[in-house]
Each structure stands twice: as C-alpha cells, then as structure tokens.
C-alpha cells in the first residue's frame, strides 16, 4: 500500500491526488480502519449528518407550532417528530460528536500514537452507527416488517407506563429501546477506551496535572459515561423484559411503580447532560486561552471544578421529578444539591473570564463561538438555577421554559462550542483553514436565529405553555412567541447552510493551514496537518502544560512557574 494513501484524516478527494486509489479501496480503508483520527472524523461526520436530519425535524416541529390550531402535522406524527428529534440529538448527535472529538484529540494531545484499544474503538463507532440506523429504520418497520411502520412516540425519556405494552402497541418503543441500548454499548466502549488511553499512554513527563485541560475534562466525561450509562441500560433491559416476556417492573396494574423508571432514567439522564456539556467546556478551555494569548486561569481549580461537577451531578437527578409528589424533604434535598452544581460551574465560568482578563483577545471564528457560548451558557445556567428552586419548578417543569433552558445549554452551550471546535481543529484534520468570512456569516446568522428561536420560548413557558403539545388554541398569549421562535429557525437553517458551505468550499479551495495556524501550545500543533498515521515520528516529551509555549518562549517557559 503506498504511503500517501495511508495518510489518514483525509475525508477529501484532493488528498489522494498522488495516486488516485479507487473509490472501493478508499472505502475499504475507512471501513477497516482502527486509526483514532479516522474514527474520530467518522464519528463527527455521522453526528453532523444526524444533526441535519434531526434539525430538519425540529424545523418541522416549529412549522407546526408557528400558528395556533395549525394542522401541518397530525398529532401522532408530531409526537414521533419530537421523540426522534430529542433522542437523536442527544444520542446520535451529541454523544458521537463528543466521542469523535475525544477520539481525534486525546492521543494527539497526550502525545500517543493511538487509542489504547483501537479495535474496540472501531467497534464502538460501528455499533453506534448501526444503532442510529436502527432508530431511523423504525420509521419503515416499527410494527413489524409487515406493518405500515412508524417511529417511537413516547418522548426522549420514555416514561413508563406510557411505554408499557398496554399503551404502546407495536414495536416502535422497542426500536427506541434497542437502538439506544446498543449505541449505548458503543459509548461505554469508547469511554473506557478514553480512560485507559489517558491513564496509560501519556507521553514522557506528562503527569496528570500537566495534561491539557481538554484531556482532564474528557477524562471526567468518560468516567461519567462509564458510571451512568449502565443504569439506563438496566432500565431498558427491564422494560424489554416487560414488553417481551410480560415482566412487571413498570406495570402499575401489578403493583409496579411508574416512578421507578423516572428514577432510573434520570440517574442516567441528569449526568448525561453534563456528559454533553463538559466536552463543550473542554473545548472552550482550549480555545479561550489560545485566542486570549494567556494560559488557562487557575488550572488546578479548573480540574477540581470539573471533578466536582462529575461527582455532584450524580446526586441531583430527582430535580427532574419535583412534580411527582416527593416529600418536602426530598424536594429540598435535590434542590440543594442541584444548586450546588452551579458553584463549580460558576468557578469555570469565572476562570474563563479570568483567562480573557488582561489578555489580547483575537476574535477568530473559533473564539467568537466560545464568547457567545459564555454568554449563552450563563443565561442557560441561571435558568437552570431557577428550575432548581423546587417550587418555581412546579410551575416551570414540563413547560416551554424548560425547552428554552435546555436548548440554551445544548445549543448555546454544546453546539456553539462544537462549532468552535470544528473551526479550530479543522485545519489540523484536513490541512485547510476554514474560511473566516463564511465562518463569520455562519456565526452571526446562527447566533441571531438561535436566540430568536429560544429566547421567546422562555416567555411562552411563563405564560403556561406546556411542552410536547402538537397544537394550541388562540387567545392564550402564546402565538407571538411561537411565531418568533419559528422565524428564528429560518435563520438557524441558513446559518447551518453557511457552515456546510464553508466546509465544502474550504476543502476544495481553502487556504493551507500549516502545522500550527493559531500559534497554539498543545502537542497536536507540533505535528503536521493532517497528522501522519502514527501522529509523531518520535514520541514527544513534555515539562509543562504548554509544551509548545516552552519551545516558543525559551526565556519564559511555563515549567518554571507551574
């Protein structure tokens, strides 16, 4: 096999210029690869694909809700729409993109050649992909191959007993269970892989406290995945037993408890949201220092805060259940623990502020996304605190205020940082810079669209609009806000088009990136863009958290001060 075609990280026709290997052989290479960089890119590409699909579903949801008494979508189709949108966004967009970033970056950042278990890594990717396919296959085949087919419509947290055989006939709910379960196996596999890689494969000199912050946070994420995905899997196994073998776990007729599922789901579900946001933090913690030209402020405290978030978030799940009639004591307990999460999160936010303070901030596109992230996450976190105040949540729970809250964290927090990450590391992965001009268009249009969509929805929630309703009546004061929200989606979609356009255009005609386009400091910038299959000819050795800074500023090296 010629050396040039072994070069990974080439999702581009142009990269194969030298010899032009045939399409099947390229395909074969990608399918059989165990290279963490290719798997990472495949994760991200699959995630973006699912993002566009479930984003279009969201757009349909918004069309339906743009006007009162609209009948664009029939009720069941609407219900399937938000179920598939939510499920896909969490499990098939958020998780794989995160897994992709971890896969791509961790070995490069810690100066390793690959992940610890490369084959397991490939397995994780493929089972996630097939699992995602299975979820969408439900549209064709849910009641069994002979039936008409339809997707699950039980909401992304699939509360029992709505998911029981009695209320959900056919197989649509089974598709939800099975596809999430097997893609969950993939997530666990890739999380274990990350932990082992970080613990056992750091390059010489990289002690735990000298790892880039990204790696630290990702380590916390992986630990969270390992601990909290099994509860979901366990609950899903129980539900499967209920549905296939007539077990009674969630059968309220037989004395089963409807609340138990909620506990199990949220024991998973709440930490899951931190699994989703922490990589966002990780990205911001890499990008903000580089573009502020300062090291991260308070590294040790940042590490501590990440670990604290990882711990506290295991004990807050019942804040999703303030309305089920728990005792006042339990409600207060969970309200308290939930608000406590705000503290380490606040520390992070302030430390980012401290990083920018006194810096010389360069507003390149990656940084723009991170700055917007700071503002939006602040908003979102504070609405989270409002929800955490149990009595306030009795009003807000399951209203559009919650919808607004979590889109602010998931989009304003996670998606914005993912965009930032793509703008930041795209040059590393492809050797081409993304266009700054298109990037700025993408940023501003999406920013406007996003806030236009989800800002007004807070107010709809305050005016008593419950979520997951396919239609509403005139005269309840919700019309304006919903219309604004739906208009916002147009902007978001245009923003995404700029983004996709930017990627395609830059792959084709983008500026050459060079090894280190941002003048950055972590190890991945010391190798070529794209890196060779083995990442580094000679494994590096570090003495500080910013090895490249040390090289660039031999008179002011970090290791003197750390």
């Amino acid at each position: 096999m010629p050396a040039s075609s072994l070069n990974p990280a080439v999702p581009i026709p142009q990269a194969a210029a030298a010899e032009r290997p045939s399409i099947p052989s390229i395909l074969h290479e990608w399918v059989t690869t165990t290279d963490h960089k290719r798997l990472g890119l495949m994760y991200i590409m699959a995630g973006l694909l699912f993002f566009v699909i479930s984003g279009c579903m969201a757009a349909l949801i918004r069309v339906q809700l743009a006007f009162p008494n609209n009948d664009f979508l029939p009720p069941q189709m609407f219900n399937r729409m938000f179920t598939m949108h939510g499920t896909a966004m969490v499990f098939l967009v958020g998780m794989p993109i995160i897994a992709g970033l971890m896969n791509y970056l961790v070995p490069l950042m810690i100066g390793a050649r690959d992940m610890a278990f490369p084959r397991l890594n490939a397995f994780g990717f493929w089972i996630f992909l097939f699992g995602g396919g299975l979820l969408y296959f439900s549209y064709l085949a849910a009641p069994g191959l002979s039936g008409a087919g339809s997707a699950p419509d039980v909401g992304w947290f699939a509360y029992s007993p709505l998911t029981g055989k009695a209320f959900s006939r056919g197989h649509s709910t089974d598709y939800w269970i099975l596809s999430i379960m097997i893609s969950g196996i993939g997530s666990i596999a890739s999380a274990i892989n990350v932990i082992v890689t970080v613990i056992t494969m750091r390059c010489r000199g990289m002690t735990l406290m000298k790892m880039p912050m990204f790696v630290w946070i990702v380590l916390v994420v992986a630990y969270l995945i390992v601990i909290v995905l099994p509860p979901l899997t366990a609950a899903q196994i129980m539900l499967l037993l209920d549905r296939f073998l007539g077990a009674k776990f969630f059968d309220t007729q037989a004395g089963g408890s409807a609340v138990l599922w909620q506990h199990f789901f949220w024991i998973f579900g709440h930490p899951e949201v931190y699994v989703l946001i922490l990589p966002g933090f990780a990205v911001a913690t890499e990008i903000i220092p580089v573009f502020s030209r300062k090291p991260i402020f308070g590294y040790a405290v940042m590490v501590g805060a990440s670990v604290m978030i990882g711990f506290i978030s295991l004990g807050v799940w019942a804040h999703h259940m303030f309305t089920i009639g728990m005792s006042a004591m339990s409600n207060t307990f969970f309200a308290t623990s939930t608000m406590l999460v705000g503290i380490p999160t606040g520390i992070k936010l302030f430390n980012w502020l401290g990083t920018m303070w006194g810096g010389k901030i360069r507003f390149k596109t990656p940084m723009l996304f991170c700055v917007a992230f700071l503002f939006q996450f602040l908003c979102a976190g504070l609405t989270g605190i409002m929800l955490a105040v149990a009595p306030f949540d009795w009003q807000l729970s399951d209203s559009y205020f919650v919808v607004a809250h979590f889109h602010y964290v998931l989009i304003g927090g996670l998606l914005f940082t993912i965009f930032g990450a793509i703008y930041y590391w795209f040059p590393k992965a492809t050797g081409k810079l993304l266009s700054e001009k298109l990037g700025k268009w993408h940023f501003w249009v999406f920013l406007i669209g996003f806030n236009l969509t989800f800002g007004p929805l807070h107010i709809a929630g305050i005016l008593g609009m419950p979520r997951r309703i396919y239609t509403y009546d005139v005269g309840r004061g919700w019309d304006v806000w919903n219309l604004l929200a739906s208009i916002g989606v147009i902007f978001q979609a245009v923003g995404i088009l700029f983004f996709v356009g930017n990627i395609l255009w830059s792959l084709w005609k983008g500026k050459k990136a060079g090894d280190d386009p941002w003048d950055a400091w972590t190890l991945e910038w010391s190798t070529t863009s794209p890196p060779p299959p083995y990442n580094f000819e000679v494994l590096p050795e570090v003495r500080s958290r910013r090895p490249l800074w040390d090289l660039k500023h031999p008179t002011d090296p970090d290791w003197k001060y750390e």
Partner: protein
Amino acid sequence: MAAASSPTISAAAEWKLPSKRKVGLICLLATESALFTIFVVAYLFYLGKSLNGPYPKDILSPPWLASVALLSSSVTVVLAERAFLRGNLGRFKLMLFVTIALGVFFLGATALEWKRLITHDQFTISSNLAGSTYYSLVGLHASHVVIGLLLLSLVWVLSLANWVGPEQHERVEMLSWYWHFVDAIWIVVFTVVYILGR
C-alpha cells in the same frame, strides 16, 4: 521531530504508566457494577410489593452448595493463575478445569432451581414483581457466569493445544479478576435474594 520537546527531564527518569488491560478491566467492572446496582435496587425496591403469589419466602431456599462451589472456584482460579506464573502448565490446566467444572455445577444448580420454580411452583418472570426481579437479577448474574465460563473454556482449550504461552500471563490474570468479580457479585446477589429477600 520537533515536538520532541523542551529540555529533557533526565533521560534516566522512570516513566512508568499502569497496564492498559488492568485499567481497562477495572473500568469494565465499574460499569458492570453500576449495571448490577440498578438491578439490586429494583429488587430491594420491590421486596414485598408483589400483589399476588407465589412469594419468595414460600419457594426460595438458599442454594448453599452451589454458592460454595462458585466461591471455591475463585480459589481454584487463583491456584491456576499461580501455576501458570510458575510455568507449571499441567497444574494450570487442571485447576482451570476444576474452576470450569465448579462454574458449570453452579450454573446447573441454577438451571435446576429455575426449572423447579417454573414447573413446580408456577413462579415465572411474569407471575409477579418478585418473579420479574428475581429472574432478571439472578439471570443477569448467570449470564456473567456463562461469559466467564466461555472465556475460561477458551483458555483451557487453547492451553490443551499448548497455545498459551507465558506472554499471555496478563490476559490470564485479567480473566481471573473477572471471575472474582462474578463471584463477588454472587455474594451480593445471594444476600439480597436469599437472605434479605425472604
């Protein structure tokens, strides 16, 4: 290559990191523990909540013999591993076989218990909450025994063919860790199901 860093720390300095397989296995066991925890919680949560019989206290009796068998297999697997380390392959094969036999015995006992419960006591997974939690928890454990046995047998067969060399020591060790884990879980399951559960 350039990243090759700033001043070398001291060429002689030791740079030792833990073994991949060990860390990996620990993570796997952590995941598995979380999985079992949920089933145990469900079991405890539903204790005494069945609306109708048969009730565990009337039909379950602690499988002492099978438990002793399973627990002693933890000892034999250690013996096997030690023998392997010393290069005493004959003894290794023997102890491995004993381990497998004990595991199979345990599984057989479980199977017979299930058979009795199902055919004689009409106690199935769908009869009541006790049935659901009992079969799922014990079944989950049994499935782990099965996996463990498959792996042990694989090693045994390979060692019969003399394909297992000293370089495989760590793999064998990991397998024995896994087997210990299965045993430890049994202690929990046993306590929950046969002691607290009645």
